[in-house]
């Protein structure tokens, strides 16, 4: 029954709507419109990207993505750890698995635009947070339209993508391994650092990939939380296509990002042998 031709519509679809567009975007990126109106092929657009102005934007994007990843890991790892520990305890007692974990990853599937938007109500200068602070006579905070707000938005949007893979790995660790370490005289702290953390590394690696990569190319989080004052690589690409109408340059940046992502994914996968399914989510 596994007739190969059943997959042909899908393969055609991927060819037309995934592979051909990548070729097109590459062609755009090496196409340069010269002053006399003719077009030619060159790597001018790529060279332009390595200009100091754009490198600053790129560096800033990397910095913000790095911060978001660190916060997601710092706050997400404990969540995954506690949830996994409790889940194993429940299973050991023969109880049904808990729905708590489900609640922590559910936001992944909810409309990110609305989730991002929901923070405006809280963070606005006369929003809920400042109303509450004012009620208690505390000083006002205005973090909207700052780097901090953009990082907060990214952590909020992406933290489920860190909790999920870390949890998936932690929950599978055999409790007897921890017991063995303790029986051999390791303190609980030592067990955590020498056993749990090394064993959860594949999950951490895919979590980092899943948070860091989208953080670099997001543009709506920085637009909504940055109020148009924060410029990331994602915003740069979006602007080249929709505002500046320099598709060739926009394509070149998109290609650079695509190659960087592909490379970092390959590097991450080196740490992640035998954990194929996790790399996807």
């Amino acid at each position: 029954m596994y007739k190969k031709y059943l997959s042909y519509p899908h393969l055609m679809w991927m060819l037309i709507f995934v592979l051909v567009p990548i070729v097109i975007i590459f062609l755009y990126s090496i196409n340069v419109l010269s002053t006399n109106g003719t077009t030619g092929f060159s790597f001018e657009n790529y060279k332009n990207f390595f200009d100091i102005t754009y490198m600053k934007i790129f560096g800033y994007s990397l910095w913000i993505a790095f911060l978001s990843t660190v916060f997601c890991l710092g706050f997400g790892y404990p969540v995954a750890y506690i949830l996994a520990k409790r889940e194993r305890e429940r299973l050991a007692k023969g109880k049904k698995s808990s729905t708590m974990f489900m609640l922590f990853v559910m936001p992944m599937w909810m409309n990110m635009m609305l989730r991002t938007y929901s923070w405006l109500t809280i963070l606005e200068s006369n929003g809920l947070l400042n109303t509450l602070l004012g009620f208690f006579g505390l000083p006002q905070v205005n973090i909207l339209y700052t780097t901090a707000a953009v990082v907060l938005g990214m952590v909020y949007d992406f933290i489920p993508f860190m909790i999920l893979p870390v949890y998936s790995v932690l929950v599978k660790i055999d409790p007897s391994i921890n017991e063995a370490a303790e029986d051999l005289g390791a303190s609980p702290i030592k067990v955590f650092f020498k056993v749990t953390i090394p064993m959860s590394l594949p999950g951490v690696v895919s979590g980092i990939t899943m948070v860091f990569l989208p953080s670099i190319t997001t543009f709506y989080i920085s637009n909504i939380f940055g109020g148009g004052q924060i410029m990331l690589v994602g915003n740069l690409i979006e602007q080249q296509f929709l505002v500046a109408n320099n598709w060739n340059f926009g394509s070149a940046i998109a290609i650079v990002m695509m190659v960087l992502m592909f490379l970092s994914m390959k590097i991450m996968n080196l740490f992640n042998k035998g954990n194929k399914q996790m790399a996807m989510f």
Partner: protein
Amino acid sequence: MKTKLKKALESVYLYLMFMFLYVPIAVLMVFSFNKAKSRGVWGGFSLKWYAEMLADSTLMSALRTTLIVGVLSAVISCIIGTAAAIGIQGFRKKKLRNLINEVTNIPMVSSELVIGVSLMLLFIALKIPRGMLTMLLAHITFNIPYVILSVTPKLMQLDNNLYEAAVDLGAKPWYAFKNVVLPEIMPGVINGLLMAFTLSIDDFVISFFTTGNGITNLSIYVYSTAKRLNPKINALSTLMFIVIMLLLIIINKRTSKDKDSNVLIS
């Protein structure tokens, strides 16, 4: 005593993180019933934003687009994806199969921005006017891999002899597929369908680049009006969140029965 304290602290931490994730959504929901227009002041209970939402023709047409694209892209990608999942099993050469899987994964693993921009350039190159059709084509593209992902584990569990037995007993291939194979893989197919629908109605980035001519979906509507004070969005969000949560609960209930096909959290 010490373990009790530790346990309590852990619970406090979990609840704080839980609040971090859900308080903004809860605030949005509560304020959708706010009589006052301000986002910080409570002016009494009212359903007026829901009424205004229904009267807003731009918003309603965005809702219509979202639902049409959601349903159509889910159904079409479900058919193509299910057929593909079966067909891919037929590729016995490991290298070729890996290559197909790699290509299938591209829309899932690469940046939405790059996919959106490259599709936009494709539609321009093909001279297809951008609008609902192009948005639909784009949504089918990113939905198919998820359908395959959710159907494949069910195919792995399937006993190949069942189909062979049906054919040996004289069933036509299509009849055997419909009556023997399909019922077995149906949970995976339905989950793929629901997931595709969820992804489609949530999408912003790819829709943003592949639409045109004033056709917007809900996410684009929210994005373009977020800067101004617009409590209609609160009403809309409340409804959207409730629908999505119900869908997710249904998917989770369906998959929690058999762990292997729980795509949502696999």
